């Protein structure tokens, strides 16, 4: 029997957290982030974290709450523009920052999970991103070598899981979650709905259960929208 289902974030995080560890956190902006697990890490108080995540939340939500709590030592991200606290900590030298182009970040995580130690991309050639990295020419074009990325722990968000950990994501809440699922030594998923094994369509499983160690059902998630943009409804004739 595989027992992957845990009662809540605290129990799922029990025994896997340590000061100084590297954590990958799924999501793009505030979309598809594991809210309960982030809160659980805040409550656990673990420190000196290196966090790999495309963004760093906003001041009072998402990974921003770990920043505010002084738990993050270094971020590996592609964009952190939505977070004023980030700016303050960074400029004050309290926070390390490694920028990766978004596609390079996504590919480094995929590579880490896929046993690819390094790969060559055109992205960033001739820019500051390539400084100090090996380069190579293929068919007359220049490429930069980037390395695979793994983490001690990945915390991700999915829409549904079965009890084996087979996952499906919803719309653009998929984003970085599938790759991070593969790149964590331990991967914990937070889902909106847990179903029995056999209820998900085997042809449409986005992440096979082999990548998932622990599962919790999300409780009281806010699912905040960063930028509400709408159009006016046309007049009904």
């Amino acid at each position, binding site marked *: 029997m595989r027992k992957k289902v845990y009662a809540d974030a605290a129990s799922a995080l029990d025994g896997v957290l340590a000061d100084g560890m590297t954590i990958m956190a799924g999501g793009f*902006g505030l979309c598809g982030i594991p809210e309960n697990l982030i809160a659980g890490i805040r409550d656990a108080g673990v420190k000196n974290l290196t966090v790999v995540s495309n963004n760093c939340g906003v001041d009072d939500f998402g990974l921003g709450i770990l920043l505010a709590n002084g738990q993050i030592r270094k971020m590996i991200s592609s*964009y952190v523009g939505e977070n004023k606290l980030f700016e303050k900590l*960074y400029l004050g030298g309290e926070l390390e920052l490694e920028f990766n*182009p978004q596609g*390079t970040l996504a590919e480094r995580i995929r590579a880490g999970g896929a046993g690819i130690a390094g790969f060559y991309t055109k992205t960033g050639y*001739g*820019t500051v991103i390539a400084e100090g990295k090996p380069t190579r020419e293929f068919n007359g074009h220049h490429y930069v070598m980037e390395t695979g990325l793994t983490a001690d722990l990945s915390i991700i968000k999915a829409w549904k899981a079965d009890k084996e950990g087979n996952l499906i994501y*919803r719309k*653009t809440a998929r984003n970085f979650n599938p790759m991070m699922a593969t790149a964590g030594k331990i991967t914990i998923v937070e889902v909106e709905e847990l179903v029995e094994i056999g209820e998900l369509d085997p042809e449409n499983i986005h992440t096979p259960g082999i990548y998932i160690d622990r599962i919790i059902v999300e409780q009281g998630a806010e699912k*905040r929208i960063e930028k509400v943009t709408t159009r006016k409804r046309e007049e009904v004739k």
Partner: protein
Amino acid sequence: MAWTREQMAARAAQQIRDGFYVNLGIGIPTLVANALPPGMTVSFQSENGMLGIGPFPYEGEEDPDLINAGKQTVTEVPDTSYFSSSDSFAMIRGGHMDLSILGSMQVSEQGDIANWMVPGKMVKGMGGAMDLVAGAKEVIVLMEHVEKSGAPKLVTRCTLPLTGTHVTDFVITDLAVFEFTKRGGTLVLKELAPGVSLDEVRAKTEAKFDVGLAN
């Protein structure tokens, strides 16, 4: 008279061909979607993992799980597909996007783009811009011709940190349209906004360019 942002977007829309797959950056480029002539089949991609982007949702129908790369709420269209960030950038990096339209702070006469970082200011990050300029089949820069300070943005060499080198095909500003003869080739002035003179463009452009105006 210089083009408005909407007119710049409309001019950029003219570069889009029927059937194109297009990625629009934030800012002026987002206006391009609304400027397309009717009857064209164009799919917009968002690098957070969506191909086939519809308009903003009706009020009250926003879905927190459905946003574009600018983090704005959007909607599906009938041919929408969703995928992961790694699959999304495989699509971009692999040369499958016909066109990327994005803003910039500087473009050099070699087609280098600098659009992600101003030293001394807080660095927000490059997001997907470096992948887009490196990967898209065609790159159009949409930007004001000069800085608020009046400094030229079409420059001999970018003084700001680069996003990519030799990556620009087309530059559309509020004053004029430029095209590179090829990647890393020569910059050519193709059009002037109505009432804008060649002299004005020369005065406000540091980059060397040839004049290839249609008459």
